[in-house]
C-alpha cells in the first residue's frame, strides 16, 4: 500500500475517510460481513456456546447434588453405625443382667436349700441338747435325793422320802 500515491484519486491529501467514492464499496462489504457473522453466530456459535454453558451449569448442579447425596449417605451410615454400637452395648448389658439374674436366682435357691438344711440340723441339735439337758436334770435330781437321804441317814434321822423330794425339787428350781 506504500506504492499507492497518497490520496491520488481521493482528491488531494484529504482524509481517505471522507472519500465518498469508496463509500458504496465499504457499505456493501460491511453489510455482507455483518449478515455472514450474524447468521454464523445466531445459527451455530451462540446456540452452541449457550448449550455448553447450560450443560456445564447442569453438570455442576448435578455434581453438587450428587455430592450432597453421598454426604447424606455417609451421615446415615455413621448414624447406623452409632445405632448398631448402641444396640450392641445395650444387648451386652442385657445379657450381663440376665446372667446376673440367673446366677442370683440359682444362688437364692441354693441359699434357701442351705438355710433349710441348716434350720433342720439346728432343730435336731436343739432337740438333742434338750434331751440331754432333761436327762441331766433328772440325774441330778436322783443323785441329790439319794445324797440327801444318805446324809439324813448319816445324821441319824429318818428320811421321809416325800419331804426330801420336795426339798430337792425346791432347791433345784432356785
Amino acid at each position, binding site marked *: 500500500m506504500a506504492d499507492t500515491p497518497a490520496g491520488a484519486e481521493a482528491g488531494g491529501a484529504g482524509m481517505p475517510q471522507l472519500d465518498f467514492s469508496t*463509500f458504496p*464499496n465499504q457499505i456493501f462489504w460491511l453489510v455482507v*460481513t455483518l449478515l455472514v457473522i450474524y447468521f454464523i453466530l445466531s445459527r451455530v456459535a451462540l446456540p452452541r456456546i449457550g448449550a*455448553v454453558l447450560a450443560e456445564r451449569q447442569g453438570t455442576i448442579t448435578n455434581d453438587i447434588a450428587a455430592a450432597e447425596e453421598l454426604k447424606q449417605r455417609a451421615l446415615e451410615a455413621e448414624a447406623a453405625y452409632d445405632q448398631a454400637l448402641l444396640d450392641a452395648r445395650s444387648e451386652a448389658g442385657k445379657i450381663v443382667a440376665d446372667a446376673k439374674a440367673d446366677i442370683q436366682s440359682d444362688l437364692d435357691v441354693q441359699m434357701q436349700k442351705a438355710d433349710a438344711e441348716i434350720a433342720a440340723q439346728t432343730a435336731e441339735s436343739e432337740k438333742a441338747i434338750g434331751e440331754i439337758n432333761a436327762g441331766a436334770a433328772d440325774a441330778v435330781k436322783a443323785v441329790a435325793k439319794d445324797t440327801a437321804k444318805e446324809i439324813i441317814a448319816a445324821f441319824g434321822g429318818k428320811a421321809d422320802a416325800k419331804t426330801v423330794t420336795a426339798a430337792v425339787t425346791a432347791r433345784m428350781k432356785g
Partner: protein
Amino acid sequence: MAGEATEGGGLEFHPLDQFEVHRLFGEGPIDWYTITNVTMWMAIAVVCIVLMLVIGTRKRAVVPNRMQSIAETLYGFVYTMVEDVTGKDGIKFFPYIFTLFIFILISNLLGLLPMSFTTTSHIAVTAVLAFAVFFTVTIIGFVKNGAAFLGLFWVSSAPLALRPILAVIEVISYFVRPVSHSIRLAGNLMAGHAVLKVFAGFAQVGLLVAPIAILGVVAIYALEVLVSAIQAYVFTILTCVYLKDALHPSH
C-alpha cells in the same frame, strides 16, 4: 508499518495512507462490488470470528480448552451486559448485539497488525453500524410502545414549564446519538493509528530521536490495544442503553 523513507533529505509522513481503500486486483474505479482491501480485512475478521467461536467450540467440552474458554468469556460478557442493561426482554436481541460487538472488537484488533487495514476506522463503516442501531432501536421503540415511545422525550419528572425545553434537548440528543456513536469509534481508531504512524515516521530520524520514537510506538500500541477493546465495549453498551430506552421508554 514504518513510513516511507526520506526523499530528497526531507521527511515525508503519510500517516493517512493506511486508511486508503484500494482495489486488490487490477486497476480501475472502485465500484460497490469491487474486491478491495476492505473486503479482504472484513473477510479476515469473519474467518477469525469463525475460528474462535465455531471451530474453537466444536468439541463442546464441559471443561473448555483455551479457545472455547475465550469464546465462552466473550459470550458471558456480552450476555451479562445485555441482560443487566436492557433487562430480560432484551435477551432476544443478544445475537444482534453480539454480532456488532465481535465485529468491532475483531476489526479493531486486526487493525493493530502491522500493514493491516482498519475497517472500523472508516466513518462509512461506523456510520452504517450506528445508523443500523439507531433505526433498529427507533423501529423497536415504536412497534413495542406505539406513540408512548414519544414519552421518552417528555420528561415527566421535570417541572411542567421546563418540559418543552427539555423535550427539544431530548429530541436533539436522540438524533445526535448515531453521529456521536459512529464518530466516537472511527475517530478513536483513526487518531490512534495515525499517531502510531507519525511516531513510526520519527523512528527514522536519527539515533537521538529514534529510540524515543520506538518507545513511543510501543507505548501507544499498548494504549491502542486498550482503546480497541474499550471502544468495542463502549459501542456495545451504548447500543444496549439505546435498546433499553426503546423497550422501556419511561424515564
